[in-house]
């Protein structure tokens, strides 16, 4: 595998691990500077865990009237609404209240270490059609009761954004991984970027799974087995089914998808978890290569995803 000349940087961001790979080692410093700047903009725009983020201010203004937002937040919100539209609402950014009601109202490490109590019955989310975005004017209005969470798309969008900017400005091939949401841009190494696909992005390199190569676009993985916590005596996770406002009850524990961008890959992998048994046919029909892992570790693939080299991680 050709990795000669590839430089790497890794750092923590958004409560997870980021990795940068560039094909020109001289570009790694500039790549990191670009990533730091863009990720800071994304955090300022849509963090759910800082009171001064645009998202928190907008949530507080639900039902009030149109609010002016930054170009970055406009693009992030447009990406989230597009994901909702393309999945028929299965990936919906109005699940903020549902997550809060499940106790996920703080940085995840705090939620995991100090399990919350259920605050009340959870119901269907308000729905993305109650978010009114004027993209050209950078203005948005939330109807009363709508609370946004862009967790399903923001990290993937940030990976795409960083990869594009780094490839353009540094003039080399780049791979950006934000917590396992992977985007590649520019000329890839001769044999592609080598990616280990598994349940948890923080798993060791030897973790059971499958190794594949990608040359461009995005690869994302969604799982019900990571970012779990206990509330009211039951185990819950962060992938919300908009129809119920509850963590999705899926036949898949982990779904990995390759697409033209990381945002699209993550949109599809999240939707696949929620769609359950219907997911393989949907992914096949839209031509997305995917690897779906059941709770017993058996694997199903679609649309040209390479044959698996073994069972998925044991549950």
């Amino acid at each position: 595998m050709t990795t000669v000349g590839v430089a790497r940087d890794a750092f923590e961001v958004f409560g997870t691990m980021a990795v940068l790979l560039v094909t020109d080692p001289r570009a790694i410093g500039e790549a990191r500077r670009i990533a730091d700047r863009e990720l800071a903009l994304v955090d300022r725009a849509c963090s759910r865990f800082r009171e001064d983020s645009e998202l928190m201010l907008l949530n507080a203004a639900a039902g009030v009237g149109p609010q002016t937002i930054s170009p970055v937040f406009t693009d992030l919100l447009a990406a989230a609404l597009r994901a909702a539209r393309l999945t028929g609402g299965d990936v919906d950014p109005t699940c903020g209240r549902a997550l809060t009601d499940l106790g996920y109202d703080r940085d995840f490490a705090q939620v995991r270490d100090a399990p919350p109590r259920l605050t009340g019955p959870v119901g269907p989310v308000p729905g993305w059609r109650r978010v009114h975005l004027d993209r050209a004017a950078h203005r948005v209005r939330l109807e009363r009761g709508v609370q946004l969470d862009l967790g399903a798309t923001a990290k993937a969008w940030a990976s795409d954004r960083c990869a594009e900017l780094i490839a353009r400005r540094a003039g080399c091939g780049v791979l950006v991984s934000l917590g396992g949401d992977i985007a590649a841009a520019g000329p890839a190494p001769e044999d592609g970027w080598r990616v280990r696909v598994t349940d948890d992005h923080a798993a060791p390199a030897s973790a059971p799974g499958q190794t594949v190569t990608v040359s461009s676009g995005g690869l994302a993985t969604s799982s019900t087995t990571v970012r779990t916590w206990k509330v009211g005596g039951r185990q819950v996770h962060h992938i919300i089914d908009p129809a119920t406002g509850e963590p999705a009850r899926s036949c898949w524990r982990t779904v990995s998808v390759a697409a033209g961008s990381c945002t699209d890959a993550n949109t599809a992998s999240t939707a696949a978890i929620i769609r359950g048994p219907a997911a393989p046919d949907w992914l096949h029909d839209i031509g997305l290569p995917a690897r779906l892992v059941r709770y017993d570790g058996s694997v199903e693939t679609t649309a040209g995803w390479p044959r698996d080299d073994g069972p998925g991680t044991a549950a």
Partner: protein
Amino acid sequence: MYDRLLAARERDEGVRKVSRITWRAGLTGVVCSALIGVALTHHAESGAGHGQQSGAIVVPGQPPQPAKGSGQVTSGAS
């Protein structure tokens, strides 16, 4: 009694009115076309960008290829 001079003046005045109306209609058309053009250009620019703005989920240039060994990075949930 038929006044040729008066008739000529009224004819000329009528021609001028028709001419003014024609010019105004034409000018209005040009202005409207320009405004529509600007609006469409703006709309196209605001929707431009990378594949994220496509009207459908974009498939990859090629599917992942099989490989052996460990990865340079890991794709998993976080």
